[in-house]
């Protein structure tokens, strides 16, 4: 998938229009558009966010995301500073984009 094809799937703010289209390959393509490199640590967050959405029909804000990370991966990764290092723009927003989920509504 080239940059043009990837961009055509996104809304004005860069979030996937049709959530059903998401797969790992698309996430990689979206990251590539941003010249952003997804490591296994980023993927942990992306999958947590998708799990959260599955369960609550919401893209999580920072607080629940931190809580989810702590529950699943332990206190070291359940910290906002850890997430901010991985996703410097804004962990809930940036990770939701690559996870193919709607923009988190209640995230500043």
């Amino acid at each position, binding site marked *: 998938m080239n940059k043009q094809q990837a961009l055509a799937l996104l809304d004005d703010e860069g979030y996937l229009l049709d959530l059903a289209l998401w797969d790992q390959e698309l996430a990689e393509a979206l990251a590539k558009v941003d010249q952003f490199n997804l490591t296994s640590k980023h993927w942990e967050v992306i999958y947590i966010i998708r799990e959260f959405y599955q369960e609550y*029909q919401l893209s999580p*804000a920072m*607080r629940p995301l931190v809580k*989810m990370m702590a529950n699943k991966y332990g206190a070291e990764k359940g*910290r906002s500073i850890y997430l*901010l290092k991985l996703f410097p723009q*804004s962990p809930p927003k940036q990770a939701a984009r690559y996870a193919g989920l709607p923009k988190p*509504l*209640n995230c500043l």
Partner: protein
Amino acid sequence: MPLLCPTGLSPLATEAMKKNILLIFRNPPFANSSNSDTLDIALACSAFELPVSLLFLSDGILQLLNHQQAELLAQKDLRKRLNALAMYDIEDYYVIDQDLIRYQLSVEDLSLACKVITQQQLAALIRQFDTVINL
């Protein structure tokens, strides 16, 4: 450990603005968007670390019943999103005993662990809050 403040405001500035808020759900599910909007306010308050309590009043108590068939109305079920409240540290929920009686419900029928208060306690409860939002 406190969360990093995403607004760029210092923790002290947000501390000074902190007011406790009571949000009232008083409409049945699917009546209009008020319950969904009220839930959005609750989640937004959590982002600002404002303490929020929720009161399910009158027909609003029906919002807490399980087994709603939202798909028949081609609407979204609020129940899953309501279940997320605890993840946003919103865990203070109230219902009135008379509303339970009126619909022949017990607290076990409700999808959130609500505290049951009487009509008399309601006035005192509402007075405890700096802000009451009632859509």
